[in-house]
């Protein structure tokens, strides 16, 4: 369980150009949930993510993960990093080793594990991201395709076996096929590991389809916290923050305005299609 309480982060505190990037944010994430975070560019999403694994320290407030306060200065950094794996935007840009296996091993090696344990984890996480271990392990990561590079980079974080996996726009800049592949993979890993997965995305369809809980960040504040259905029901507010609705919700909303009798909580194309078919039959 993750409990964030009154988290505030001020950049350049005390200087004339100080800015409040996060302002009094509190929320709770239950074990095994899949959480989507949405917000306009510059709303403070990335700052929030970086707090979750101790890369940034809050100006005030606490983050407690499974009873451990990671904002406490006595908590060991490696302990935090072991608990929370953070996959940055365009994670393939951090690949550096000569071979895929060595690169994936970087994280577990930093944890000071035994060589057998490291090898085991490297194999496991490369397979977890859907790559053929025997085929790619001795390849240079730079010879791989864009989508494969990203998988290797994600494997590098998975190899640390975090209890919480955080992904910042994991599909940015990928083609539609690779986009779906990566999301399927993330969902698959989530199911198999039953961990907490938190992901940031600008694609409302993905958010609506995949998450159990949605956090909406607006100008450094937590504007909404609820299920996708609850969040996307507040249509006007979502729009006023410069965000969009999922395509299906959008279409259903238009049809409702035209007088068709449809439920308001259609989030996916399948749900919308079913509801529309039902309404037409009447």
């Amino acid at each position, binding site marked *: 369980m993750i409990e964030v309480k009154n988290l505030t982060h001020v950049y350049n505190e005390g200087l004339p150009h100080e800015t409040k990037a996060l302002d009094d944010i509190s929320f709770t994430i239950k074990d095994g949930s899949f959480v989507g975070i949405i917000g306009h560019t510059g709303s403070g999403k990335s700052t929030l993510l*970086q707090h979750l*694994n101790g*890369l940034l320290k809050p100006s005030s407030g606490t983050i407690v993960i499974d009873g451990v306060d990671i904002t406490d200065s006595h908590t060991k*950094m*490696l302990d935090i*990093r*072991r608990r929370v*794996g*953070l996959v*940055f935007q365009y*994670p393939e*840009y*951090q*690949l*550096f080793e000569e071979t895929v296996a060595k690169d994936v091993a*970087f*994280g577990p090696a*930093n*944890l000071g594990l035994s060589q057998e344990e490291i090898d085991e984890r490297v194999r496991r996480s490369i397979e977890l991201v859907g790559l053929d271990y025997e085929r790619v392990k001795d390849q240079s990561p*730079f010879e791989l395709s864009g989508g494969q590079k990203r998988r290797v980079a994600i494997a*590098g*974080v998975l190899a*640390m076996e975090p209890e919480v996996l955080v992904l910042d726009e994991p599909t940015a800049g990928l083609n539609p096929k690779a986009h779906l592949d990566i999301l399927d993979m993330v969902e698959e890993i989530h199911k198999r590991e039953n961990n907490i997965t938190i992901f940031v995305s600008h694609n409302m369809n993905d958010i609506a389809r995949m998450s159990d809980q949605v956090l909406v960040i607006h100008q450094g504040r937590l504007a909404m916290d609820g299920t996708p259905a609850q969040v996307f029901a507040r249509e006007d507010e979502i729009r006023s923050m410069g965000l969009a609705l999922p395509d299906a919700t959008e279409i259903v909303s238009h049809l409702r305005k035209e007088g068709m009798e449809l439920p308001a909580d259609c989030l996916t194309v399948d749900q919308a299609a079913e509801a529309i078919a039902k309404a037409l039959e009447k």
Partner: protein
Amino acid sequence: MIRDITLGQYYPGNSVIHKLDPRVKILATLLYIVALFVVNDFPGFIVAVVLLEAVIILSKVPRRYIWRGLKPVLIIIAFTLTVNIFMVGGDIIWQFGILHITRQGLRTAAFVGIRLVLLIIGSSMLTLTTRPIGLTDGIEALLSPFKKVGLPAHELAMMMTIALRFIPTLLEETDKIIKAQQARGADFESGNILRRAKALVPILVPLFISAFRIAQDLAMAMEARCYGGVVKRTRMNAMKFARRDLIATVIFCAFLAVIVLQRVLL
């Protein structure tokens, strides 16, 4: 954080010194440095200090900014001073074992010290009061006479401009990479020198790759907009030699004349 590193140390302002033509400022700075080596006695240094002091006051740059530029080189100055004090031969005024201090040694050390400090402050006044773009434009203009002998003045200036432009971009990139590797448990702060040097590999490799990628994108973008260094280009902000530049030139020439005459006559 790494982003706090200040580079190109331009201090925004609107003073007379800021407004001077970069060409005048660059040439004056170069000649000032030469003059510092011509000067060989205290009266000459006083003239040099007075001129620099006048520039500092006119530029309205806070002294702590100037001091900050001087700080990193203090060790070098201290080292040179020590070497000069003990190594120059002449009339001994203090001796301890093989160490001795001579009158000539003290004199040389004092001169070297003053010279170095003036040299650093003088050249940092140029960068503090001139935008990087102004600097490169000025250098290009000053180098253009050498185009006749095949010197690619415009290309050199363009390279400098691009390099300056990408310093903040690369710093940001470095910051991102450091964080990403820290998220994978990398530790840059502990261990001996060898360990720390090794810890840099996961930063440097991605950084180089990023730099190449950025360079390639930029080259493509420039080409897409038909950039060609050889064609005659016009500028958005053309440099103009104004009245204040003339006045500055006259004052500076007077300074040079004083320095040279004093050296020749005395």
